[in-house]
């Protein structure tokens, strides 16, 4: 792969989710040169894995289609997938960046025809569905994957499976000799749109995510509800494939807790309210959702949605931090124990399925970032000491999609200010010379 041309007038955007795509596109549509790097094989990030958005219940892939079309139509954006930033040196207006590109084992010749996928029999856990099902080891990450190019999983490289994939390709697109590459770039400013990951639910011991099949996370529940998900959009619980009509949502699973995440993740209340509507949509009047919460944080016009859900007879609210979950061995139902703080009643309530509204943890937590980056106590990116690098979207703060895009648009302008300043400085130094 040829290294892209970049100068101190180039903006580097790290992360190809909706925030990164936005930051890149806003600058590119202003005439600036942008390099967008994404560590996964396709753009889209976590929003692509959501079934619907609150409060409009529209589909995230609709916006993804628009953003992908903007990228396809704009020569100012250079997209590099399976690429991570390993080092940033230099200073505001003049950074040297080192990128590491993982081998895809499929080159630009790929047409997305799918013959390699047909030839391969090995399966791997499907990352797009959070491992709830499997996918062929030669795969297109999802139906809207961009670039529309297959990936050969490294686990089969060196095995006859990979050779089958290579043999099946008529276009010489499978390249099993690919190795990791390192690229050096010069850029003027860096936008970190590295996003978030769901908090590791297994760490919340009393909820038994690692012990009970029918305790799942909110991001997994999105995949269950999605027609493109592992169950074809049917809400079936993992232990026995039974329809999960009686669902409990536990708020602040990990969030607002100094033992786990000290911040409030902002989106989880609205996400659970939305998910109660998935249950209603699937089972009608037979649906039953219970939301266990501390505070319902339905800010600004989201209050309208909260009121709508409150009026839904299939949804019940219990103000309580659930103390622990036990298992009814007979039927596999999780049993929730705790105290309802509105009047202090103890409860032990059975549900078909428990959905933990897990918090947002910065994807970069625990990752070595440039020394210059300033993090807050939860590892969200506040900025850089030299003012040349910026956090955007949920890398900067736990944000919903709308606010993340807004944050990314702002970050894009801050990056433009940096390169504008260095261009102006260069111009004036030339004039002096």
């Amino acid at each position, binding site marked *: 792969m040829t290294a892209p041309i970049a100068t101190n007038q180039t903006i580097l955007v790290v992360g190809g989710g909706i925030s990164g795509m936005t930051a890149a596109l806003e600058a590119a549509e202003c005439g600036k040169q942008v390099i967008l790097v994404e560590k996964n094989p396709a753009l889209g990030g976590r929003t692509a894995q959501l079934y619907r958005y609150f409060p*409009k219940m529209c589909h995230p892939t*609709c916006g993804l289609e*628009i953003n992908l079309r903007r990228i396809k139509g704009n020569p100012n954006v250079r997209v590099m997938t399976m690429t991570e930033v390993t080092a940033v040196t230099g200073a505001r207006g003049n950074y040297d960046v080192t990128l590491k590109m993982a081998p895809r084992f499929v080159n630009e010749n790929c047409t997305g025809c799918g013959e390699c996928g047909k030839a391969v029999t090995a399966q791997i856990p499907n990352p797009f569905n959070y491992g709830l099902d499997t996918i062929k080891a030669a795969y297109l990450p999802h*139906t809207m994957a961009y670039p529309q190019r297959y990936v050969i999983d490294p686990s089969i490289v060196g095995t006859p499976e990979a050779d089958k994939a290579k043999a099946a390709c008529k276009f010489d697109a499978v390249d099993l000799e690919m190795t990791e590459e390192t690229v050096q770039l010069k850029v003027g400013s860096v936008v970190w749109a590295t996003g978030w990951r769901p908090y590791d639910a297994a760490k919340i011991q009393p909820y038994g995510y690692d012990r009970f099949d029918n305790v799942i996370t909110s991001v997994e529940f999105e995949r269950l509800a999605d027609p493109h998900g592992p169950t074809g959009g049917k809400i079936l619980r993992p232990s026995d494939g039974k329809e999960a009509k009686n669902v409990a949502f536990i708020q602040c699973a990990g969030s607002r807790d100094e033992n786990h995440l000290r*911040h409030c993740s*902002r989106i989880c209340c609205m996400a659970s309210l939305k998910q109660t509507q998935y249950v209603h949509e699937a089972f009608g009047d037979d649906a039953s959702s219970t939301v266990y919460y501390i*505070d319902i944080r339905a800010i*600004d016009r989201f209050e309208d949605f909260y009121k709508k859900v409150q009026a839904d007879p299939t949804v019940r609210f219990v103000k309580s931090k659930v103390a622990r979950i036990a298992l009814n061995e007979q039927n596999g139902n999780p049993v929730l124990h705790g105290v309802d703080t509105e009047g202090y009643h103890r409860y032990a309530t059975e549900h078909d399925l428990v959905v933990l509204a897990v918090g947002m943890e910065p994807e970069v937590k625990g990752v070595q970032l440039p020394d210059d980056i300033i993090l807050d106590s939860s590892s969200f990116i506040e900025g850089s000491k030299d003012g040349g690098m910026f956090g955007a979207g949920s890398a900067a703060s736990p944000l919903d999609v709308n606010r993340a895009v*807004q944050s990314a*648009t702002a970050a894009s302008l801050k990056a433009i200010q940096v390169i504008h300043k260095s261009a102006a400085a260069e111009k004036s130094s030339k004039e002096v010379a």
Partner: protein
Amino acid sequence: MSENKFAAYICAGCGIGDVLDVPALEKIAQKEGKMTVVKSHPFLCNEEGVQMIRDDIEKDGVTHLCIAGCSRRAKAEAFSFPTAAVSRANLREGVLWVVAEGSEHDEVRQEMAEDYVRMGCAEVKKMKLPAGNPARADNKRVLVVGGGVSGMTAALSAADAGYEVVLVEKTGQLGGFAANLHRRVPFASPYADPQPTGVEEMAAKVADHPKITVHLNATLAETAGAPGRFTAKVAQESGSVVEEAVGAIVQATGFTPYDINKLPELGGGQANVVDQAGLEALAQAANGGPIKRADGKEVKSVVFVQCAGQRDETGQHLPYCSGHCCATSIKQAMYFKDANPDVDTVVMYQDLRVPGMGEDFYRSAQQKGVIFTKGKASKVSGGDSCTVDFKDLILDEDTQATADLVVLATGQVPNAGVNLDEWTEVNTAAEGGDEEAKAKRDEMRSVSVLKLAYRQGPDVPQFKHGFNDSHFICFPYETRRTGIYAAGPVRRPMDMHQAMEDAAGAAMKAIQATENAAQGRAAHPRAWDLSYPSARLEGCTQCKRCTVECPFGAIDEDEKRFPVFNESRCRRCGTCMGACPVRVISFENYSVDTVGSQIKAVNIPDEFEEKPRILILACENDAYPALDMAGLQRRVYSAYVRAIPVRCLGSVNTIWITDALNSGYDGIMMMGCKKGDDYQCHFVKGSEMAYYRMSKIDDTLKQLGLETERVTTHEVAITDNARVATLIDEYVEQLNAIGPSPMKGFG
């Protein structure tokens, strides 16, 4: 001008050549498509294939080309030829991957592919290479309306990126609401204490910035024009008017606190009951010392009543939550605790809403001894000792609290100007000669913020609860008035930190709007698009449908009621083209002809062949991708359909429907986005428009002696891959039951 040269390139890759008769397709392109150059290639999207096309363009003078291979959504970069007009015939996702396998389907599969080649050739023959809006203008200055924190941030953001800014502020000083705050909520770690506002420093920066011109005591008298060429008449205190030419606008007109006097039951208007702004004034006066009431008595106990007149279910007050008030009350409670830890401070809340790191600020308040009570206040009595009647939601009982001072956390009311829905009603009545309406219209115009000289009204449309927000989750700045962006609490309730971020984002969009306008390009969501609408005015009947139906206020009328296009306001959706009854509006590469000729290019078998033909007109952003992805997932559907992507269902002109019916199609499926309150159409009402227009087509059908089922409209989401296949097959069955169209053979 050099001559047009047409070429078709047929890709045989991805199995196309194995299953379809490519030489036959070439022949169709040549004989029926009338393409001068026709070539096939085993792997068209690779370097060699693309180079072949490039050579033909550069050396052989090809100007128009049809690429028959994969969908237009695939390999877009490989098949990008900026100097040629390009159509794509979708043989892979649209034929190969969706028609059932097996030789018994060879005939219908081949017919489908041949039709798509005919359509692709017909389309490109009618296309012109877009040249960009000829009326482009390149003023890149940004007008910022409002000199509060949002406006000042927008101004500084644009100016620091090298753009000139004109800032208009109606009062005599910069700073807005925030200028009257004692301290602000912290924006950065450690989120423990109130912070200095920094407003004075910001105002000084704005005043000193060489790229910013500030008009104080000034309002807008009129704003006319379009992105790249707005003219703002700025009315000064002296009565003089200064004209400022600008390229884009940021509206940062802020909010007004909800009037506390509207809350008499919560003590509004009574002694020692203040709103949050009132408490800031007391804190400023105390300046770090003990906070005293208006009567001079030092406050020893204070209750903050959250959601005062907010989250209201009675319909009398604000139904929404203003988002910032919980953190603001926490900050204000700290004013008391920091000055004197012995002051009793109670925050009475229903849901404490401090998202993100606000949680740390909340913890800090708890450490400082602020009490948080989950309760709902029903009555506040002011006076020397105020009482708050409330329901304790934890103990589930009615109880009372007393305090020296009660602070009501009232909400933000946007300073958004005129509600355009009301305006349209009043304006229509006024235009009809209603004198009362005329007076009302004048009154409305006087409260307008922007005073836009737009046919569609003087301000930007409001979304919910009077805020100027975007309707779209993925695109918070997707406004309905191109080049005008709302920022801060006028867009959505928000705190200062968010407002500053928001202002930077709006400034970004504003400078981008000027850059796009200068190049004659569309704005979001078709930012790459150089096409623009033009009208053959000699054919225009001055019916005004285009001006009325344009969702973006892009079309004005001249004194003879002819449409006047403001191309740089236009979003290129084609709603005007769909609306025009005499079909005089078109884009270079998207017109009544580019689609109409595709419809006519399809070969319609006679009725005895029992092969119905169904036209699909699919929204290119949602329904068409769903059809494509059905292909990607190898979902099989009928080979009798012929799909054409349209920019928006709003652009569908009824002539396409009548032409299709006249030429013997058996049925038509229109697929668009969700309509209604939660509409998903990025051109606002395309889908709704299509439903409306099609509701009128029934008469036409009856005149033609056709069943109404022959024209159908569907809401299709981008995730409906499986559903589109089912919809198609069910429709084919339905049409089979009705029987073939009697129009066959007359077309």
